[in-house]
C-alpha cells in the first residue's frame, strides 16, 4: 500500500519537467532492471521522474522490487492489491499500470472484475461505517499472531503473576 502510493503520487503529479533528458549510466542500469522486471521496453513514469538522483532511484527501485517480488504472497496477488489501492485513491497511473501488470501476470477479465467488485463493495462499507461511526465488532474473530519478526526470536510467554499465599 505504501509503495504503491509512493509511485502513484509522483506519477500522477505534473512533474514531466523533472525527467532528465539523458539519464546517466547509473540511472540507465536501474532502468534496465526495471524493464526486465516488468518485461517491457519503456520505464514507468514514476521511475523516470526521479532519475535525476540515481542513488535515490536505485533505493526506490530496490524497495519496489522487494515489495512486489514473489514471496509469501504471489506477485499476481500483490498487483491485485496495488490495483485496489490505486482505484481507491483514484490514481490514473496506478490503476492503468497495475491493471496492465495483473493481465500480464495472467489474471483474466473475471479476476479483474472480482478485485474491482471487492474494492467497490468495501469502498461502500467503509463509508457507511465511517458515516455512522460504527465501532469495530469483528476484530476478535481472527486469532492473534504470535510469530516473531523475520529472523527474530519467538515471543516470551507472558509472565505469571505470583500466586497469593
Amino acid at each position, binding site marked *: *500500500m505504501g509503495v504503491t502510493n509512493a509511485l502513484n503520487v509522483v506519477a500522477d503529479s505534473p512533474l514531466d519537467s523533472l525527467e532528465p533528458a539523458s539519464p546517466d549510466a547509473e540511472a540507465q542500469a536501474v532502468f534496465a532492471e526495471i524493464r526486465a522486471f516488468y518485461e517491457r521496453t519503456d520505464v514507468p513514469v514514476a521511475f523516470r521522474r526521479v532519475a535525476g538522483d540515481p542513488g535515490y532511484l536505485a533505493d526506490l527501485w530496490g524497495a519496489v522490487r522487494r515489495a512486489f517480488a514473489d514471496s509469501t*504472497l504471489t506477485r499476481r*496477488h500483490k498487483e*491485485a*492489491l496495488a490495483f*485496489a*489501492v490505486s482505484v*481507491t*485513491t483514484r490514481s490514473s497511473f496506478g490503476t492503468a499500470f497495475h491493471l496492465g501488470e495483473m493481465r500480464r501476470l495472467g*489474471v*483474466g477479465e*473475471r*479476476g479483474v472484475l*472480482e*478485485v474491482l*467488485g*471487492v*474494492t*467497490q*463493495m*468495501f*469502498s*461502500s*462499507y*467503509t*463509508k*457507511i*461505517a*465511517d*458515516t*455512522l*461511526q*460504527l*465501532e*469495530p*465488532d*469483528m476484530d476478535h*474473530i481472527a486469532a492473534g499472531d504470535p510469530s516473531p519478526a523475520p529472523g527474530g526470536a519467538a515471543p516470551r510467554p507472558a509472565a505469571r503473576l505470583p500466586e497469593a499465599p
Partner: protein
Amino acid sequence: MPTVRLRDASEYPEPIQKLFEVAKAWFKYDFAQPPAMSRVMAWDPELGAFHGRAMKRAMAPGEFSRAEKEMVAAVVSGVNACAY
C-alpha cells in the same frame, strides 16, 4: 459512538433474523449479536439484500481465493482509514 441506535437482532422481523443466521455461517463465527454493519444494512432489506448479495458474490472464490479477497478488502479499508 454510533450516530444511530443499533437495533438488537430480536427487534428485526423473522425473515431478517434468518438472514442473520446466514451471516453467522458466512463468517463461521457465532456472534452474540450480528455485526453492526449487518444490522445497519438490514434496516432496509430492499437495499441490504442486493448489497449483501453483491458483496458475497464479489467475495466468493473465483480467480482469487476468499483469503486473497479479504486482503483486498483490508487494503481498501486501510486506504480509506476505516477502523471498522
